[in-house]
């Protein structure tokens, strides 16, 4: 890995993103609109909203970051620029870390919008420290970026990336304890839930925001989420050179 190459990829992505004014507006507008919609839906059911909020914050962070990365990386593959990039001495780690750092500011901004709109806009009651919730979301963002890169290998168009949302993300929303606690799921779904990254993000955020626990109280969730991020990073690394 060379720092200059990684930084060149990172700055290129940031430059391209900033230049795309419409996407920049949507990056901030979409999570705001979605979270406001959620808030208005549960305006008369404060307790339900308080209970759902941590799960929704985690789920929307995963969805938005996955889409952002998946579609962008697919563009790199489809336009042949990834092939061309791989014809240079750049390493796979340079590419992955460059992408991760390039998307991180926008993914963090989106997660911050989701978190701040939920907490301050919707006046959701919470315990614990918000910065600790933000650290957990940061690890989830790493998972989502690597998941986006990995899944883009199997898509040939932006439309197909979107099709992966019901396949990859919808089961996580239903089985990660947002709607129903995982221990109340059928036993076979409880097994499936154990490999879903969103489940650990939801568990962790619920512990911080609903039970007031600190990062040490969610160490298990953080370690598992970090492990999933690393596994997806390795998988994404293998698929970077994959030719469709």
């Amino acid at each position: 890995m060379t720092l200059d190459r990684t930084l060149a990829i990172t700055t290129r992505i940031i430059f391209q993103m900033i230049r795309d004014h419409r996407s920049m507006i949507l990056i901030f507008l979409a999570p705001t609109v979605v979270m406001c919609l959620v808030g208005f839906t549960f305006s008369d059911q404060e307790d339900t909203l308080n209970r759902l909020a941590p799960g929704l914050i985690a789920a929307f962070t995963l969805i938005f970051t996955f889409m952002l990365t998946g579609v962008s990386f697919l563009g790199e593959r489809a336009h042949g620029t990834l092939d061309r990039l791989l014809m240079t001495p750049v390493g796979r780690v340079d590419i992955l870390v460059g992408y991760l750092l390039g998307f991180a500011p926008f993914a963090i901004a989106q997660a911050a919008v989701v978190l701040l709109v939920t907490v301050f806009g919707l006046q959701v009651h919470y315990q614990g420290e918000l910065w600790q919730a933000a650290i957990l979301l940061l690890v989830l963002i790493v998972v989502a970026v690597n998941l986006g890169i990995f899944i883009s290998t199997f898509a040939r168009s932006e439309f197909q990336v979107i099709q992966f949302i019901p396949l990859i993300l919808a089961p996580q929303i239903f089985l990660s304890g947002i709607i129903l606690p995982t221990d109340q799921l059928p036993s076979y779904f409880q097994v499936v839930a154990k490999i879903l990254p969103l489940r650990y993000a939801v568990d962790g955020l619920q512990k911080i925001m609903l039970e007031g626990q600190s990062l040490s109280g969610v160490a298990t969730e953080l370690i598992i989420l970090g492990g999933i991020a690393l596994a997806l990073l390795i998988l994404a690394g293998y698929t970077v050179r994959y030719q469709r």
Partner: protein
Amino acid sequence: MIFMENVTFSYGKSEICSGLSINIPTGEIFGLVGASGSGKTTIMRLLIGSIKPHYGNIEILGKQPSPSLCKNIGYMPQSQALYEDLTVHHNIDFFARMFGLGEPFHRRQVVERILDNLSLWNQRNTLVDKLSGGQRQRVSLAIALVHSPQVLILDEPTVGLDPRLRASLWNHFYSLAKEGVTIIVSTHVMEDASRCGQVGFLHLGRIIASGSPRELMTRADNSSNLENAFLYLLQEGETK
């Protein structure tokens, strides 16, 4: 310099090239000539190492294609593969950094020299998205040249260029070859083929004839041009 011996490659059951052998010395411009689907791009990808042959041996600069050879090879793909939302300068500068030209002052000199050489100076701050086809081709070539490679692999480099631009690009190729750069050009345009030092006629993944354009025309019953020579040798190969 570039050496392929008995190379075979297939996509699934479809054999793209079979028993292919090519030997190109240093400083030569070799034209790989064939119709669409004859296997030109596959051979280019075999040479750059993005796909591996099932059988046979490939050597470039005495080594098998591998990521470590990248810094000695310039590759211009058929699809221009450029960042459309970046300027001409940014595209070339980005790939210069990927090739390890990290020192900003030196890199700036290299990029500016290439912009000048390829007549792209006036477009340096233009988004690639706004360029004409010919200008994009030149940006793509600039990226292939930015690290001063010893071997240049160009997949249909003159497609869509007007005659004046084509002639100017060929002059650039000649001066590179004079400096010792080995160039392999794939094309289906006979006018381009006639400008190469050596030509290999490709049909269904096999070299049916190779030599200088003049030699090939002589061999093809003294054909008046390279196109007739190609058709003659193709027919001769089929009747055998």
